[in-house]
Structures are given as structure tokens and as C-alpha cells.
């Protein structure tokens, strides 16, 4: 294994230590920025990232280079100095089960800043924001400190590396709500408004923050960018094991021997993550299912262990890669109660802007509570199935409610007997509660 196998975490030695500016530069830090600004035109940087095959690590998996290329750049690719554009790093990690961006923010903050400088150069944005959830206090402290260092070094400010490119990055710490991670809701929050999502189109790349072209990228996505510039497109494409490119932070939590987070090639099989890296299930527990990419992704079963963790393979298996941080359901946790916890989260975090989500999620919670309390009827399962369609894609302003329905949809199919055992008259012999 050569030292580039884990570009994102190569500077991270332990859970306690973090990479200083010196540590970061020692392994080639800020060389990607130098290459982009001194050797390449903005459009070329966009093309590099597109060719590298980098896809959004926040969950949606959209091509990062393609997203950048949708930003209006003036005629014939010439940049118009009077057009304000913004870049926003989405550091609002709040998907239940996701714990990857916090590591990158706390332990190698300069990597994010370099990624942001390159991204801002590629879309010719002169102001960028880091939108960070309010609970990430240590991350905020380290990022703020790194920003000061970057300003002192001349990596931020006017005429970066004696070029015509100017950039300032500001840290904005939020005060909460899951919905702020949705890019249009994030923009409303950044403008000081209630974080309701906006109608799309217009897409943020054309009309975002204060009506200006705005690119919102996830923290992990941006952290990939310096390495693509520094080591090249071919190198990056070679890192993936399946059809997708690069490496990915994969996590696993639940009743495992060693829950944790690992940087592995995109396309690493689920089995390898659970059995080799997480050490398998704790003694006395069996694997019953898993949500591969956080609470808003659909269940996979033990029969799916050989599925590769990349966007297309997980989608083909009927779920989503999401954040790549999986939640394990063991055989002693009731899937219906697990669902109740998940749906309570989504009902609470719904912004209340559109009716299917505002009314449908509390209804889902009420039905699940009634079922668990022994007040359910068998028809309730049909009502729940109906809700997964009514709250599904196309009926809501944003992806919150459709995401909330993904685990429910699979659970109704895979764990029907667990629901039925709570229904009076359907109680299986020996069932608890």
C-alpha cells in the first residue's frame, strides 16, 4: 500500500490529535491549490474534477464538476469580474448515523480550506461560507484557527499566490435543525431566514445566496478536491474498486465489536466493512439488517452483504449510499421501535412548510406508536404503506419526507411479522410485549 491510498485521512493519526498547518503542508498540502491557481484556468479545474468522477459525498451523489460547470461564468467562458458568485461548504452534518464530516473538520481543517479555495477558483467565487452546525464546537474552533493561519499565509485574501484571484472564507455556525443541510434551506438559514427549503428551479447554481449563483458542496466532497489536483485524474479514478472513483469515509455503528470510521476505496463490499473493519457483531447478537447510508436510506439485509458500497451498486440493491455511514440492526432490537425512533426524528425535524411532510410524518409516528402500544389494526400497515407513497418523491418541496419513508418502505416489506406481532389477534405465540 502506498501512502496515497488514504488521501483524506493520511494526516489523521489518532482520534485526539489533529493536523497542524505544518503537518498538512508536509504531505503536499496546498500544492493542489498552487497547481489550480498558477497553471489552470477555472474551466479546466472544473473539467479535471468532472473527469475524476467525484460525486457529492453529502448523500445525493451528483457529479461535483458538473455542478460547478452549471454556474454562469460569462460569455465564452470568460469570467465577469462584476458577477458575484458564492461557494458554501455544507458542514451541517446531522443525518442520524453520520459521523464523517466532524472528523475531517476537527482533525484536518486545512484540507477543507484548500478544497474550498480550489472550488471557489473554479467557479470564480470571491466569498465563501462554511455553514457548520452549532453543536460542532471543537470543529468550529479548529476551523476558525485554520482560517487565521490561511489568511496569514496569503492563501486567503487579495491576489492569492500573486494571481488576480481574491477569496475570503467566513465560518457561519448555525443553531440547529436537520433541514438546514438541504441546500436551499441552508441558503435561507444563511440569509437569516427560517430554514424552509425553496422551490427548484431556479437551482442554486444559478440563483442561490442573495439571488446570486451559489455552489453548495459537502465537506467530504470538498476535501477530495486538493488530491485530484495534486495527483491527477487518472490516479483518482484508480482509487475506486467498483464503478465509482476515489475513496470514501465509511462508518458503521450499532452493536458491533468495533464501531468506527474508515477511509476505504469507493466500492468496498459491505461485508468487508462490517466483518473486517468493525470486527463483526458483538457476542450474542446477529445481524438482521442495515441502513447503508444513515437514517434516510432503505434497509438492506444480510443477503446484501456482498453489495459494493458505491452509488450505483447500493441503488441497484434497492437503497442509497447516502452518507456511507451505516446503522446496524441487530436481532435483539425491534425494527418497529427502531422505525419509531427514526420517524420521530423526521417528524420533529420537518420544517412544516409543505403539507405531506408536516402532516404525514406525525401521522406516521402516531400509527407506529399505536401499533407498539397494542392499539394497532392490520389495516394500519396498509395506511403506512400508503404514506410511503404519499410522502414519496415528487410530492414534497424537498427530500426530507421521501428520505424518511425509505427505511419504512423496506421495513414493511422485510419485517412485516415484527409489525404484525403487535397487532391484537395477530400475536404470534411467544411474542413479547
Amino acid at each position, binding site marked *: 500500500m502506498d501512502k496515497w491510498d488514504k488521501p483524506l485521512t493520511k494526516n489523521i493519526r489518532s482520534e485526539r490529535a489533529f493536523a497542524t498547518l505544518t503537518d498538512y503542508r508536509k504531505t503536499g498540502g496546498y500544492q493542489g491549490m498552487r497547481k489550480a491557481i498558477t497553471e489552470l484556468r477555472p474551466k479546466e479545474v472544473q473539467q479535471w474534477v468532472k473527469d475524476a468522477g467525484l460525486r457529492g459525498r453529502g448523500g445525493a451523489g451528483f457529479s461535483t464538476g458538473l455542478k460547478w460547470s452549471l454556474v454562469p461564468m460569462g460569455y465564452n467562458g470568460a469570467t465577469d469580474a462584476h458577477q458575484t458568485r458564492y461557494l458554501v461548504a455544507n458542514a451541517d452534518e*446531522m443525518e442520524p*448515523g453520520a459521523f464523517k464530516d466532524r472528523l475531517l473538520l476537527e482533525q484536518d481543517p486545512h484540507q477543507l480550506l484548500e478544497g474550498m479555495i480550489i472550488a471557489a477558483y473554479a467557479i470564480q467565487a470571491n466569498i465563501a461560507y462554511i455553514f457548520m452546525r*452549532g453543536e460542532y464546537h471543537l470543529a468550529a474552533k479548529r476551523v476558525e484557527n485554520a482560517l487565521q493561519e490561511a489568511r496569514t499565509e496569503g492563501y486567503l485574501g487579495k491576489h492569492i499566490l500573486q494571481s488576480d484571484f481574491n477569496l475570503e472564507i467566513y465560518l457561519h*455556525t*448555525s443553531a440547529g435543525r436537520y433541514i438546514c443541510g438541504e441546500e436551499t434551506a441552508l441558503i435561507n438559514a444563511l440569509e*437569516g431566514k*427560517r430554514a424552509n427549503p425553496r422551490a427548484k428551479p431556479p437551482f442554486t447554481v444559478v440563483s442561490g445566496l*442573495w439571488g446570486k449563483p451559489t455552489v453548495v458542496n459537502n465537506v467530504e466532497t470538498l476535501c477530495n478536491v486538493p488530491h485530484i489536483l495534486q495527483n491527477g485524474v487518472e490516479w483518482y479514478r484508480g482509487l475506486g474498486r467498483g464503478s465509482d472513483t476515489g475513496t470514501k469515509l465509511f462508518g458503521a455503528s450499532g452493536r458491533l465489536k468495533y464501531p468506527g470510521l474508515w477511509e476505504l476505496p469507493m466500492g468496498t463490499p459491505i461485508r468487508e466493512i462490517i466483518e473486517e473493519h468493525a470486527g463483526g457483531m458483538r457476542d450474542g447478537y446477529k445481524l438482521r439488517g442495515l441502513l447503508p447510508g444513515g437514517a434516510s436510506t432503505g434497509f438492506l439485509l444480510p443477503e446484501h452483504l456482498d453489495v459494493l458500497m458505491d452509488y450505483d451498486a447500493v441503488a441497484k440493491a434497492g437503497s442509497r449510499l447516502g452518507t456511507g455511514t451505516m446503522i446496524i440492526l441487530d436481532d435483539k432490537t425491534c425494527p418497529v421501535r427502531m422505525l419509531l425512533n427514526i420517524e420521530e*426524528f423526521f417528524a*420533529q425535524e420537518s420544517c412544516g412548510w409543505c403539507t405531506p411532510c408536516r402532516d404525514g410524518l406525525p401521522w406516521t409516528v402516531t400509527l407506529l406508536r399505536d401499533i407498539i402500544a397494542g392499539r394497532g389494526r392490520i389495516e394500519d400497515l396498509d395506511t403506512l404503506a400508503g404514506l410511503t407513497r404519499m410522502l414519496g418523491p415528487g410530492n414534497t418541496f424537498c427530500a426530507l419526507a421521501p428520505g424518511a419513508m425509505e427505511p419504512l418502505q423496506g421495513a414493511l416489506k422485510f419485517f412485516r411479522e415484527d409489525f404484525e406481532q403487535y397487532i391484537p389477534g395477530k400475536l404470534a405465540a411467544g411474542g413479547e410485549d
Partner: protein
Amino acid sequence: MKNQTEKSSFEGLSPAEIQEINAEISEYEDKMAVSTEALKIIQKHRRWVSDECLVAVAELLELSPAHLEGVATFDNLIYRQPVGKTVIHYCNSVTCWMLGSDQVRERLCRHLDVELGEMSADGEYTILPIVCLGACDHAPVVMVGDELRLDITEDAVNEILGR
């Protein structure tokens, strides 16, 4: 609710608060954008945002109180009623729930003899639930003030509460 009986004798925002809020404005296109940060600055000085404070901040930012209230009540980390010196947020999202967040909540509330959202009798603590704190590999977790605490056991609860 017993927490709401406390009446503040409000004499306007302090010079320090006004100066800190104004310093944030230069980072954005307009004053509205500092809504959340202004409320957080108020909380840093006063722990919570009273009605009087909310109106004063709205005036300073040239916003309607209704707009600012819309933001304040939407955000999980803005407190519109008094809280203790240290707010303990326990994570109740799925992995922490699986690994015992209900017991963590019960222990915290029992030790302090409070319901969620109440202030302890000595004014030291308030316990609130919070969504996933991004440390699921160390579940269950809590946030004590600004500090994330991992792998919470019964002993850890005792140690956090200093007893």
C-alpha cells in the same frame, strides 16, 4: 411552568452585545443574515433569549420581531425560556437510542430531579434532547455545555454531574 416565572428587569442590550452583533454584519450582504448569530451572542451573555431581548435585537437588525421569532423558535439551540448554567444535550437519535439513550435521559433527570427543559433547583443544569451529535461509533453520547462526551455509562453520568 416554573421556569417562566423569572422576570428580567431588562435595560436594553449591553454595549458588548451590540458591538459583537455589529461586528458580524460585515461578513454578509445584509443585516438579516446575522439573525442566528445575534441570538447566539445574546445567549452567550444571558443564557437565554427573553421577549425583551428578542425585540431589542430585531430593532438593532431592522427586522420585524415576528421574523426574528420565526428564526428563534425554529432553531434547536436557541432557548426562549431560562436554562441552567450548563445545558446537557443528550443524543436521542437512532444509534444512541439503540445503545441506551433512554437510560441516559432517565439517569440525568432522576439525579437532578427535573423534567426535560426544566432548570435544576440550584440553577446549574437543564437537560434537553438533541438530534444525532455525529459520534455514533461512541454511542450513547451527550454534549455538556460545549463539550462532547462519548461512551456514556452510569458512572459517566455521575461524574458529569459531579456527584
